């Protein structure tokens, strides 16, 4: 059995003449928490709407446990629980009535299961109250409860930390980690704030202007930090030769951005690299290094204007 829970294959979306999503291809694995991160307007909600069949795909496909959302909607969506944008519920109904409403839409959900889910998200007390009186945090939890009713294999939460205080975020983090670990659920969480969800993710994908510009396992950066791997920026000339030297002599992949050469390595290796550049007649004008953290990488990738 494959370990892939959801697979996006070159997913594109155009509205009018504008291409909002420009070919997303990635997979989410069972039992992993995947952070879908990007600034406002990057296309996170649009992508999620396509994942759950609310929007037609202009191109490509989304496979959920192998079932296409386009061609086999019912079997695909059966394995998905989701909140899309705000956790909107019927305000004139109680939490319990809202959950029973959704429970009736899928065969095989017992009252016991509904109670179990209520307990999981900690809404026992206000469950008989009208949702119109709920705080945002309570509605967020009711939204998660609604998404978990049918024990889905994939849980998709669009900005679940929006408007929550740190305690609320910590709480969500706890039961999301528990779901992934205990029930092998794949969780997709979107956010425009890396810091809010970094701690609950195994892996993050960064989206900007409808393109996935990087995916990164959170574990990687953690080990990177312990081994003192740093981000090095050098101003050198000629650039091409420098890239070649790094590749042949040090087995390092480097990028060039304008006049700056970018690569990652351990601190101890820097003198050695400088020496080899000198030996190859490469002029060095400047050497900078910084400790690489996920946050830095995120800012590097999408620029500073991430906050609304």
């Amino acid at each position, binding site marked *: 059995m494959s370990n892939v829970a959801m697979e996006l294959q070159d997913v594109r979306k155009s*509205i009018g003449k504008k291409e909002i999503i420009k070919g997303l291809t990635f997979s989410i694995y069972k039992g992993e928490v995947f952070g879908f991160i990007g600034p406002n307007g990057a296309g996170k909600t*649009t992508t999620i*709407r396509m994942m*759950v*069949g*609310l*929007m*037609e795909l202009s191109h490509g496909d989304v496979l959920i446990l192998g079932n296409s959302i386009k061609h086999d*909607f*019912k*079997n695909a*969506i*059966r394995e*998905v629980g*989701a*909140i*899309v*944008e*705000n956790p*909107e*519920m*019927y*305000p*004139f*109904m109680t939490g319990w*009535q809202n959950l029973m*409403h*959704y429970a*009736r*839409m*899928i*065969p095989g959900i017992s009252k016991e299961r509904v109670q179990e889910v209520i307990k999981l998200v900690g809404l026992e007390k206000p469950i008989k109250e009208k949702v119109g009186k709920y705080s945002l945090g309570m509605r967020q939890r009711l939204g998660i409860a*609604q998404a978990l009713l049918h024990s889905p294999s994939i849980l998709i939460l669009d900005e679940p930390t929006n408007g929550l205080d740190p305690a609320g975020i910590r709480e969500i983090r706890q039961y999301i980690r528990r779901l992934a670990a205990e029930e092998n659920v794949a969780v997709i969480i979107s956010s425009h704030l890396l810091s809010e969800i970094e701690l609950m993710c195994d892996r993050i994908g960064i989206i900007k202007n409808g393109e996935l510009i990087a995916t990164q396992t959170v574990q990687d950066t953690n080990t990177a930090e312990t081994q003192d791997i740093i981000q090095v920026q050098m101003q050198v000339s000629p650039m091409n030769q420098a890239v070649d030297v790094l590749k042949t002599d040090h087995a390092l992949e480097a990028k060039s951005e304008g006049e700056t050469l970018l690569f990652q390595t351990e601190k101890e290796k820097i003198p050695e690299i400088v020496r080899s550049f000198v030996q190859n007649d490469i002029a060095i004008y400047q050497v900078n290094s910084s400790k690489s953290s996920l946050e830095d990488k995120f800012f590097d990738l999408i620029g500073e204007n991430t906050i609304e």
Partner: protein
Amino acid sequence: MNNFFKLVYNELFKIYIRKSTWAMYIILAGIIIGVGFLSNIDELSSKQYSDDNWRETLEEENQELTKEMEEAEEDGIFYDMNSNIIAENNYYLENDIQPDGYGAMQFVLENQLLLSLVSLLTIIIAAGIVANEFRWGTIKLLLIRPITRTKALLSKYAAVILFAFFTLLFVLIFSYIIGLIFYGFGSFNPHMLVDDGNGLAYVSVISEIVPAYGFKLVNLVMMATFAFAISTIFRNSALAIGVAIFLMMAANPIMLYFSDRAWAKFILFANTDLSQYTAGSTPFMEGMTLGFSITVLIVYYLLFMALSWAFFTIRDIAGQ
């Protein structure tokens, strides 16, 4: 199939859990009580012919009415009304039938006018049932279940029709109860006189109630389906309510305005009143038949349903 019933149950639950729905029923009940109260004051309907000297009562009534007519102008409405009553009274006397007193059943028959209120309420529900889900943002959670959009839409439509049916039942039963309170039971199977085109005929009141309500149901279903379609296409309940109610009110002036055009018979409202084909009535236009009207109605109905379906199933759920 079982699954479908649960969906319809959900939709009805969402209709009847709201206070605004109950407010509509309370207003409806208030109007029925008011009508019962007002017509109870009106002497004509409270007249009884139950005692043995009903013949004398009728004769006296005729004399009074004739005197009134002599004083009144030749062609006023009182003139017509009085001569109708005299004709009816004479029919009873000639055929030696004791008239049934005004009872609960007659009250129910008179309340058929309340059906336009049932139409109004049904239009409000039909206009909101899809659009509100968009307004509340709950449409997203509704459509990410293992249910096709077609099924979701049909369950909503079925709920609208059931709502109309329950409301109609409410009007019938509540009118009957109020009729009982104000006028009493009357006779077991009361009869009345109607003009069927070949003069007066003595018929059972129940046999009048069924077609009277039945014919109006056609209009109700068509207007509800129309409001449902507008609301599904534009995702806006206020617009759907406005357009549907405006058309319902303006139907007669519209038909009058276009009555000299040949194509006017294809307008929906030329065909919603099927009682135009019963004995004693003339169709809206020459050459129109019951079959023609039913065909036109079916075409409009399918058009409304097809448009609702197309817009609901094909369009993206975006921006809600």
